[in-house]
């Protein structure tokens, strides 16, 4: 167990193992994504209320779910980096932020596009939408803070502090935004979640959610590899790698 932890902290080992994981995981992910999309778009019946526009669900919901989960991954990595001073946790945390931001962006944009045919407007100040917007800002904050620091080691620590502070606040944010909504506005707009979802729609959705989790993992690993190379650019193993690459 301890040696495994020790290895996790070793950049060359992580670089190597993530390379072999990606070699299998990435094609598998792309395959699952394609299958899910084809299944969802071509082979399911339209929703009885929303017609064909509901097909956005196959990207909207997975993106939203994984974007939320991604924040916890980031915060946990940040915590590990601060408490156990593990360099690679720093790297993982930094790699989470842009991926999470991208997924949040996808959820926001697809949701907004979906809103036009169903609600008649791209944007309403609804609790769920607002809290998603806040999540987007939280991710961007981490990215921006990291970029603003010259010393990348310090940048990692600063972002770790920020993401930990963010975790304390995330439940508060969600609770308060939910509450705000129910206080001020009669529920004029409802997600269609109440109509229990038909299995023929559920299975492709589950496939897509799994595929998005896998996609998140792939992107995380790829970003980590790039980050490792940048941080370790003066070590022997990277130099060797650079010479071999030519």
């Amino acid at each position, binding site marked *: 167990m301890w040696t495994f932890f020790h290895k996790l902290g070793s950049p060359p080992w992580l670089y190597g193992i993530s390379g072999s994981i990606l070699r299998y995981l990435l094609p598998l992910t792309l395959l699952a994504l394609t299958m899910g999309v084809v299944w969802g778009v071509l082979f399911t019946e339209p929703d009885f209320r929303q017609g064909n526009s509901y097909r956005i669900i196959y990207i909207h919901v997975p993106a939203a779910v994984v974007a939320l989960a991604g924040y916890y991954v980031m915060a946990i990595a940040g915590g590990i980096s601060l408490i156990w001073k593990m360099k690679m946790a720093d790297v993982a945390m930094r790699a989470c932020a842009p991926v999470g931001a991208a997924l949040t962006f996808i959820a926001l944009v697809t949701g907004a596009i979906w809103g036009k045919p169903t609600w008649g407007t791209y944007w309403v100040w609804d609790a769920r939408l607002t809290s998603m917007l806040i999540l987007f800002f939280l991710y961007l904050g981490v990215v921006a803070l990291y970029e603003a620091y010259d*010393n990348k*080691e*310090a940048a990692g*620590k600063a972002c770790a502090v920020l993401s930990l502070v963010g975790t304390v606040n995330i439940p508060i944010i969600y609770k308060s935004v939910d509450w705000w909504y129910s206080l001020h506005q009669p529920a004029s707009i409802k997600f269609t979640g109440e109509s229990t979802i038909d299995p023929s729609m559920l299975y492709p959705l589950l496939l897509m959610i799994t595929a998005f989790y896998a996609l998140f993992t792939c992107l995380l690993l790829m970003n980590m590899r790039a980050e490792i190379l940048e941080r370790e650019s*003066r070590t022997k193993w990277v130099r060797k790698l650079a010479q071999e690459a030519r």
Partner: protein
Amino acid sequence: MLAADNLSLERGGRQLFEGLSFAIQAGQLVQVAGANGAGKTSLLRILAGLSRYGYLGRVERSAPLLYLGHQSGVKGMLTPRENLSWHVAGEGIYSDAAIERALEQVGLYGFEDVPSHALSAGQHRRVNLARLYLSQSPLWLLDEPFTAIDVDGVAALEALMVAHAREGGAVVLTSHQVINAAYPMQQLSLSTGLSQ
């Protein structure tokens, strides 16, 4: 009081020092030598514990220290007296009489209650140097303490450092001026370490 073990630092793509080891004992007066950009300030900040990332090696401090950097840490909006009595370093709460004495010793007699922004460059730095008269910390890390100080002031400061070393303190300082202390000075070179 202070031991540095195998310190290495790279900044902006240049290796400033590598494998630097030395120990500083009570009674030592050490001048860090080096041209502009050699890495003296960077070293002092590492020794003080202000820089914690980006260098290799270990530093051990076994005595309270007083660090004076390039920047003065003196607030222009406060008078010299206020600057000292509310100093953020929090080593101690000094009595008004002690502060007055220290200000007099750095030649600021009569300027105790002038806002510091109305002081000349040298007087401004002297407010900070007054802390040397007040402090009880045995280890002093001084980054170019003579900046903007006139000839008499430099002599007084040299005498103070010698007295501090005699009493069992230690001083590590950087300066581009030659120091004429009546005391054995040591040079710390960033490439070769401590030497007589």
